[in-house]
């Protein structure tokens, strides 16, 4: 059984609960053991990055120190991180610990640890697409996603900036998710918006910007002929799933609806779980845009 240190991040039990549940099930099925790092803290997300440069690197640096406590042997270990933003923040701190001796000395003193550099932060999509062979990935395929046309939506921080991501996939034309979804029997269709931004943390304070960006994404996906959009990020999910329906305007009088049917959004791990025929009905019921009618029509569910 392959073992990975694991940083779930704050949203995997709350707004990203579908990502957490499907990740657990898919990893179990593939024999990938996720060892949660002890007593972890928030990565700081957009807010530490925006408000306090020291905190922006220090919060994820503490998680790297905690990850070193996970009992794993070897020199080329991975810290698996599902959320794209958590991955980016942790990768930034890892890079600073490797390249900035003053920062490293400060963190080692404040956090009372010694940085070994044995554990590399990697996002879950990278791990599933690159550490497993196509034969391993399809060994449990019992419910291929035939007829499901999707667009792969990578968003920002999964592939950018290249300095943090170490170019695990191309920053402008990533393909890992398309590759995985194709193995699951789905049909990824080409589109030009795979690395465009959903608006991130502006969703609660400038909902108008996020509604606009999500509208662009949904229209582009529909124009490309997709039935659904697939993401690897809880922030993207919250925005693209939520802001198609809830437009950030006062609930009364009822705000205008878009002139298209809202597009169902999936985490890539949810589609893998469906293709492996794992129980997903309760998980899928928690989306704001209900994806079940589409899956029933295609006899996937």
């Amino acid at each position, binding site marked *: 059984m392959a073992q990975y240190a694991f940083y779930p991040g704050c949203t995997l039990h709350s707004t990203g*609960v579908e990502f957490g549940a499907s990740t657990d099930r898919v990893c179990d099925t593939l024999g990938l053991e996720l060892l949660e790092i002890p007593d972890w803290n928030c990565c700081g997300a957009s*807010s530490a990055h*925006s408000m*306090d440069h020291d905190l922006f690197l220090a919060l994820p640096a503490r998680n790297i120190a905690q990850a070193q406590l996970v009992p794993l042997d070897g020199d080329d270990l991975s810290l698996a991180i599902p959320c794209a933003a958590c991955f980016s923040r942790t990768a930034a701190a890892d890079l600073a610990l490797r390249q900035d001796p003053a920062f490293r000395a400060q963190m080692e003193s*404040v956090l009372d640890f010694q940085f070994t550099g044995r554990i590399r932060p990697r996002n879950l999509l990278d791990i599933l697409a690159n550490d497993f062979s196509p034969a391993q990935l399809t060994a449990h395929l019992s419910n291929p996603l035939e007829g499901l046309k999707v667009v792969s939506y990578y968003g920002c921080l999964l592939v*950018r*900036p290249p300095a943090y991501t170490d170019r695990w996939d191309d920053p402008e034309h990533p393909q890992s998710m398309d590759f995985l979804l194709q193995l699951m029997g789905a049909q990824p269709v080409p589109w030009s918006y795979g690395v465009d931004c959903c608006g*991130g943390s502006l969703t609660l304070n400038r909902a108008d910007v996020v509604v606009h960006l999500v509208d662009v994404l949904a229209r582009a996906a529909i124009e490309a002929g997709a039935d659904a959009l697939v993401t690897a990020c809880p922030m993207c999910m919250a925005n693209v799933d939520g802001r198609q329906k809830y437009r*950030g305007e*006062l609930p009364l009088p009822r705000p205008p609806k878009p002139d298209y049917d809202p597009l169902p959004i999936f985490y890539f791990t949810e589609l893998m779980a469906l293709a492996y025929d794992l129980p997903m009905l309760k998980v899928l019921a928690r989306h704001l845009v209900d994806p079940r009618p589409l899956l029933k029509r295609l006899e996937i569910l």
Partner: protein
Amino acid sequence: MEPDLSFVEQVSELSQQNVRRCYYCLRCSAGCPAAYAMDVTPAQILRLVQLGQKDTLLRSSAIWLCIGCETCGTRCPNQIHAGAVIDALRHLALKDNVPAAEKSVFRLHKAFLSTIHLWGRLHEVSMLAQYAATNLASRAVFGNIDMGAALFLKGKLELLPHRTQDMDQVRQLFSLGEEPHHDD
């Protein structure tokens, strides 16, 4: 206003970006998802830094509307990360107590960080409560009631927080900025 010609040096050093290399090809502004809503776009920001227009920049809405998506820096032919330049400008604005042009953005970041200071991990309900309390005058709060209710009914907002045990250590990280700095 009088251009401050030392400003470009200050911002270049703070951001670790050679702002003088910008030749205004506009790829950053063309790819920026929030440029349409900004008062000055990323390429204009780089130009204004070159021209020492500190006041305009620190008072701009743009430094608060940058999402940090890194499209600009990834595409720049001169390897300038406009996002890092904008981060440096925002930090200067905070240091000089320049009022944020996008107050709701500022208040949400504040509420987010105080939640982390309290629990070590994000607890959406605590964060939303503080954001709402500090931002009552803005309609940004009331426009989110329907989505908040929907998330709650789907069981996606937890009432009780999960917390980090070693909060002393986490809180120590919040005071690093007050101690002597590492070079960054």
